């Protein structure tokens, strides 16, 4: 079976090369035959990748220890669902998943445009196939998941306990769906340059693809944060760790692109900039995979150092250089059709937004790679961590928050003084009001206050936008307000979907503010019957139990939780000792309320029988996740616009 797997990947490699060659030939000669063969080759790679995944999954689920990959990442006592998700626990399997998603995107792309005979779409497929050459090549020649051991061990080494979590079953595939998806926008951009196409039709198409994978990437990042929160047991969800940053960077640039692309659609400006942003987003996605997998930078998430680092770096260098060269070569195509009329306008605010997003990405990139950069520049290795990112990124992010409110209410071309007055007086007032209300509750410092002001400001502008939209239709409508809101959103899904995403962002900001600035911590060793006080809560240790789980021994502290003297629940903070690795794993107890999380960790049981308990109060942390859900909702609304346009096309 392993030979079949290897053969599938080798054939995939060959088919990818064939696809690129055949499409290139077709594009050059204008024959449609080679183009059709090339398309079929892309489909074939997808089928082969799927076959390879099925074969590896079969081995994982059967715990076939003759496979090196299976022996490295599973054990016989591993629950079945984690054996399944062990596919993305290691490097080879992760790369295979990458390839599967990549080729699935290639096929989905070709399926979506199967009726378009324009060779432009073949050119996009060619770019996607080029990347498939890289991944099938890596999986065939450098990092094969189908290596067979000379002497199979009686049992495997087990799955890293950190990965034995439901979150880890969905986080990597979703994150990859985001990461890998940027290949399609990248393919569009490169195809435009290769074929010297003008016009903005592709921009509308690329926007939807970008929105799709941008949404997935965002969800993937938040799921990763959620995993860190419940699994790593340090009380937080974001530590500016290199791997976290790696996933954030393409998301930031992608966000910038989703805004600036509107200017191109509307005004035919910023063409070079937009193409550069797409290319950068894609390169950062590859870079993210590189960071996660290469072990260049120390991270809680980097599980091993490996041999694929140089390959990835070379790939980024070559594809980056090729993209840059193409942009320069087609400079004339990217000539702007319009000029900026005024800085205080929608365009101006979007441009400012873009500069800030790129600056934020740059600062994150620099901070993440600082040891390498500083050594190259000054000869001494300097490292920065969370305090640096908080200092640098927080003010930039706050400026972006304020722009979130200002941008959408500025008019295109030029905003007049009366527009400014009409749109800004009430939000500013509400912002000041919110800040005034927050101060007695203990909010202090410039950044928290700016954040509160910004949140109220943005929400007010969005409510005003909705109100204005409803007002404009009032004459035709007599239905209830919620129905009117739904109707309004339906009428312009892209626009109002976007506003809903903005509401999600505001919630996220407030959640981050609450859980970072107002976090409380307390710890103590507790004997049965003793209590720990934190904020309004009293945690009383009811007892400690020990029991055998499938592949671990679970020690649990049972805590009675009272809030303001009233009993609110019993929580279980545990430590699991995995039998395979003899590694302990903290299992956090979370007492969730909409306003705050009570987060409890069992440090361990002491000689005298007392349990060391550490507790945090994380206010408003549910807004971080809730904001994420609202963002998903907004993204889905904006994406659903696509179907309507499609249908119209088919009718017309």
């Amino acid at each position: 079976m392993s030979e079949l797997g290897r053969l599938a990947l080798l054939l995939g490699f060959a088919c990818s090369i064939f696809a690129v060659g055949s499409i290139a030939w077709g594009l050059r000669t204008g024959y449609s035959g080679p183009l059709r063969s090339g398309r079929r080759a892309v489909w074939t790679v997808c089928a082969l990748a799927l076959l390879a995944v099925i074969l590896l999954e079969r081995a994982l689920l059967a715990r076939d220890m003759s496979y090196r990959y299976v022996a490295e990442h599973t054990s016989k006592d591993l629950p079945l669902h984690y054996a399944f998700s062990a596919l993305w626990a290691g490097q080879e399997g992760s790369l295979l998943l990458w390839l599967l998603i990549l080729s699935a995107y290639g096929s989905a792309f070709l399926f979506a445009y199967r009726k378009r005979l324009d060779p432009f779409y073949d050119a996009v497929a060619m770019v996607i196939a080029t990347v498939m050459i890289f991944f099938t090549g890596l999986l065939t020649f450098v990092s094969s998941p189908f290596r067979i051991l000379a002497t199979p061990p009686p049992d495997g080494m087990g799955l890293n306990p950190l990965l034995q979590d439901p979150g880890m079953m969905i986080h990597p595939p979703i994150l990859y769906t985001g990461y890998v998806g940027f290949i399609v926008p990248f393919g569009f951009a490169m195809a435009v340059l290769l074929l010297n196409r003008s016009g903005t039709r592709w921009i509308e198409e690329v926007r939807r693809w970008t929105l799709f994978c941008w949404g997935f990437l965002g969800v993937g990042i938040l799921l990763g944060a959620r995993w860190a929160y419940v699994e790593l047991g340090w009380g937080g969800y974001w530590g500016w760790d290199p791997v976290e940053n790696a996933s954030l960077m393409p998301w930031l640039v992608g966000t910038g692109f989703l805004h600036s692309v509107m200017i191109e659609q509307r005004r035919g400006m910023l063409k070079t900039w937009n193409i550069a942003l797409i290319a950068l987003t894609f390169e950062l996605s590859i870079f993210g995979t590189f960071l996660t997998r290469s072990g260049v930078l120390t991270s809680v998430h980097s599980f091993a150092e490996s041999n694929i680092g140089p390959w990835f770096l070379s790939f980024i260098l070559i594809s980056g250089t090729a993209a840059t060269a193409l942009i320069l070569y087609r400079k004339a195509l990217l000539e702007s059709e319009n000029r900026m009329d005024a800085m205080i306008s929608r365009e101006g605010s979007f441009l400012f937004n873009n500069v800030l997003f790129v600056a934020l990405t740059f600062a994150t990139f620099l901070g993440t790679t600082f040891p390498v950069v500083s050594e190259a520049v000054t000869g001494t290795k300097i490292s920065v961590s969370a305090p640096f990112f908080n200092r640098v990124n927080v003010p930039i992010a706050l400026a972006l928050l304020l722009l979130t409110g200002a941008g959408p209410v500025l008019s295109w071309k030029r905003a007049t003084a009366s527009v400014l007055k009409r749109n800004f007086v009430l939000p500013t007032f509400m912002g000041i009001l919110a800040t005034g209300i927050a101060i007695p509750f203990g909010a202090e410092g410039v950044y928290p206050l700016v954040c509160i002001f910004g949140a109220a400001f943005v929400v007010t502008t969005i409510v005003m936008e909705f109100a204005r939209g409803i007002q404009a239709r009032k004459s035709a409508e007599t239905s209830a307000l919620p129905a009117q809101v739904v109707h309004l959103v339906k009428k312009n899904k892209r626009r109002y979907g976007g506003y809903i995403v903005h509401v999600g962002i505001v919630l996220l900001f407030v959640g981050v503010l609450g859980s970072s600035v107002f976090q409380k911590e307390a710890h103590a060793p507790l004997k049965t019957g003793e209590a720990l006080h934190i904020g309004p809560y009293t945690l009383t240790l009811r007892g400690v139990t020990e029991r055998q789980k499938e592949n671990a021994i679970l020690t649990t502290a049972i805590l009675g939780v009272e809030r303001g003297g009233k009993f609110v629940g019993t929580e279980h903070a545990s430590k699991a000792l995995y039998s395979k690795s003899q590694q302990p794993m903290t299992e956090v107890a979370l007492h969730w309320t909409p306003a705050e999380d009570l987060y409890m960790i069992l440090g361990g049981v002491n000689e005298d029988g007392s349990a060391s308990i550490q507790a945090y109060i994380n206010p408003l942390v549910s807004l971080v996740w809730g904001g994420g859900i609202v963002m998903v909702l907004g993204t889905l609304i904006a994406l659903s616009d696509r179907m309507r346009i499609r249908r119209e096309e088919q009718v017309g």
Partner: protein
Amino acid sequence: MGNSTRLILMSLVVIAAVGYLILTGVKQTGMQYMTVTELAGLDRAPKAEGFRLDGTVAPGSVEYDQREPKLQFQMTDGKENISVVYEGLMPDAFADGREVVVEGSYRHAERAIYASKLVTKCPSKYEAKGLGKDKS
């Protein structure tokens, strides 16, 4: 003033502001990234306090008071040792011989790092070693 001039001006202002943030950020939060041997070899107290060290946990050196909680151990790069004091819970993957990264302030008189952050790399046990050769 033309709009392109304004545009460039605006970009410059943003770049300058971000540059300022980055520079002061590095100055105030940057940590010197050294090997244990380099740090142990210093004969005078270094000017800056912030340090980041990579190394492994010297076997047998771990003292852990779970009640405080306070973790003390010797960090080694195979040649020299440095004491590390960390006030916090022991990370799950922490153990003798594990690769760790510590960040914190160095007190030359005690030859010790007071760590504010302790990251344990996942044990390499989960990867290739120990399974022997591939079937050719």
